[in-house]
């Protein structure tokens, strides 16, 4: 044991010498448990991004280290601590799950490193806990359901029932839709996360409530389980489904394999879609599909963006990683080409961006994917920005 640790010690000292010529990026995501399906997609996107950059940022080699959060806040914090303390990374990016981000943020920020969320966007991080070294390459949790609430108003839905998992993001989603939806919310069910995958009781309640619509948030594999049970319960006509983050490019191939046609035509809101027309997105989607034989998910798109956001910072200071102010200013300007198109950052370093209504369709090759139906918001800012003391 002792020998092993001193070997590790010697190894890190050696890399310490070589450190000057590289930029170290830690990427925390979920690589084990059922949540790994999301993490693997992000991993693919990050690797593709590095490939597209030619392995360099600002003249420095990129040293990328993945960390597995095991779908648990505590493990996520431990792996973050290791990246910060042992690997001494310059940036920590990733974080699918809001509760993992909340548990880990302090470790990164207290150490004076940059923290880039490639998915999670819980309210506190955008509001009272906002930090100059934190940036998001995704969204604030409430934004997407707020867009969905707007869609519900436009469609003239008078009442909805809400089902979501009982954790930070689930609460954010419910808060978001409540904020913009003008009709009546007849009931809210929060289910045990992530263990509960059978929603029979909740679906029966939703149906009995007599609501005109059902609003649901189930990320990852739970989304697939929910969609399946919704269809089995035969609610398609009596209780139309409106989802956020529950149908994605990860579940669609599984649905297609199982010929689960009910999912075709279902709609949800998002800040990105594979059909968005810009050079960066076209290259990303085409190369991702060529390499992995499937459409990238929004998780992948945001992870891809997070790398280019970091690149813009390192490029701006010409590889001088001690110039924190320069890198911060570069990221704040959001001047890199994002796959979602141009956006800006608010005072809390959350994107002010467009949101679209997406629909599940078949592409020309018969693959199930999505397209944009309409633009819901042109430039939407989250509501927590006002609680953030930064300018």
């Amino acid at each position, binding site marked *: *044991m*002792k020998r*092993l*640790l001193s070997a590790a*010690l010697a190894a*890190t000292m050696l890399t310490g010498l070589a450190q000057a010529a590289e930029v170290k990026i830690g990427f925390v995501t979920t*690589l*084990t448990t059922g949540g*790994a399906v999301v993490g693997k997609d992000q991993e693919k996107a990050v690797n593709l991004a590095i490939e597209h950059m030619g392995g360099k940022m600002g003249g420095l080699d990129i040293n990328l280290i993945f960390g*597995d959060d095991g779908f*648990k*806040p*505590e493990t996520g*914090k431990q792996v973050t*601590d*290791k990246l910060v*303390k*042992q690997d001494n990374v310059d940036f920590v990016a990733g974080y699918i799950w*809001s*509760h993992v981000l*909340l*548990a880990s943020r*302090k470790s990164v920020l207290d150490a004076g490193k940059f923290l880039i969320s490639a998915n999670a966007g819980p309210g506190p991080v955008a509001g009272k806990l906002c930090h100059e070294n934190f940036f998001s390459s995704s969204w604030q949790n409430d934004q997407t359901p707020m867009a969905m609430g707007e869609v519900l108003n436009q469609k003239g839905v008078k009442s909805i029932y809400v089902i979501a998992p*009982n*954790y*930070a993001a689930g609460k954010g989603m419910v808060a978001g839709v409540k904020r913009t939806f003008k009709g009546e919310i007849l009931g809210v069910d929060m289910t045990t*996360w992530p263990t509960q995958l059978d929603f029979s009781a909740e679906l029966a309640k939703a149906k009995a409530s007599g609501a005109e619509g059902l609003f649901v948030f189930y990320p990852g594999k739970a989304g697939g389980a929910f969609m399946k049970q919704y269809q089995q319960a035969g609610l398609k006509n009596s209780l139309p489904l409106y989802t956020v983050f529950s149908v994605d490019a990860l579940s669609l191939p599984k649905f297609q394999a199982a010929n689960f046609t009910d999912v075709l035509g279902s709609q949800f809101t998002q800040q990105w879609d594979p059909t968005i027309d810009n050079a960066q997105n076209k290259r990303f989607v085409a190369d991702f599909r060529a390499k992995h034989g499937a459409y990238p998910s929004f998780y992948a798109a945001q992870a891809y963006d997070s790398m280019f956001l970091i690149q813009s910072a390192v490029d701006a200071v010409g590889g001088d990683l001690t110039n924190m102010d320069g890198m911060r200013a570069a990221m704040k300007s959001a001047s890199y080409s994002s796959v979602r198109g141009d956006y800006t950052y608010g005072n809390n370093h959350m994107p002010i961006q467009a949101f679209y209504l997406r629909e599940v369709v078949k592409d020309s090759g018969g693959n199930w994917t999505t397209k944009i139906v309409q633009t819901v918001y042109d430039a939407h800012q989250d509501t927590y920005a006002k609680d953030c003391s930064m300018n």
Partner: protein
Amino acid sequence: MNNLTKVGWVTVMGMIALAILPPYFLLTGQAFYMDLATRLVILGIAAVSLNLILGFGGMVSFGHAAFIGLGAYAVGIPSYHATWGGFDLIASYNGLLHLVLALGVSALFALITGAISLRTKGVYFIMITMAFGQMAFFLFQSLDVYNGDDGLTIDVRSELPFINLDSPMQLYGLSYISLVIAMLLVKTIVNSRFGMVLQGAKGNNERMVTLGYNTYLYRLAAYVISGVMCGYAGFLLGNFTTFISPDMMHWTRSGELMFMVILGGAATAFGPVLGSSVFILVEEILSSFTIFWHLPFGLMLIGVVLFIRGGLMGLFKGKGK
């Protein structure tokens, strides 16, 4: 030192290694290994406390993680209110208050759950302690004020006289000394008349009852002592991780504690510490090689059970004792 048994040697060498290596890592800029050692030593205290009842008393508690959680929340809740306001009665950064709360709440929880659980035996005892652990888990999960399942970040650590817990070295020193004291305490208890009755009741309860001992009370006392020690480990763990969540009390965590004790060797002084060390170090090493580290880890556990009697300490039981 010549009259030390093999087991004795392993114990002494192990404790010396734990005293020297981690500070060495910190001084050479390997802060992460210091963290690892701190976690290991704190969980070692919890495992030692569990060993008192599991190894020596034959009471297999499958809910011991609840005490860790209670101890940790005894730091987190007062600190949270001192930062964000509310609940003036306990809102404070005062470490002594946190400590009193941690020990007091653990004792109370142990007394109530122990009094009920000890009516059962064997597997039923395992399961009823698990049930109480799960109740604590779900109770904290249901508390919206403390973010339920999402957990609580401790912004300010307990403020103690003479010791600054923000210093990794001092926190480790406190944890290490606590571990030594915990081991000595268990040793003293086991060798006392109280300990004799406890072990006697494990072997043959009827006989001890016939001899006129109220074994139920002896067991309850041991259960409460163990719970309080474990709650103390929770107090340290909360201050160490600065992030606490109901997950710390989940049955899988209680299971891990149990595995540490059995892996190292139940009813031995150093076994629980060896178990927690091996558990955490092997996990750390394997997981740095592959995300599928559970596979070799599982095989290792099966191998230990199949081929070594009495856990890893059984390897050193060649002669003596």
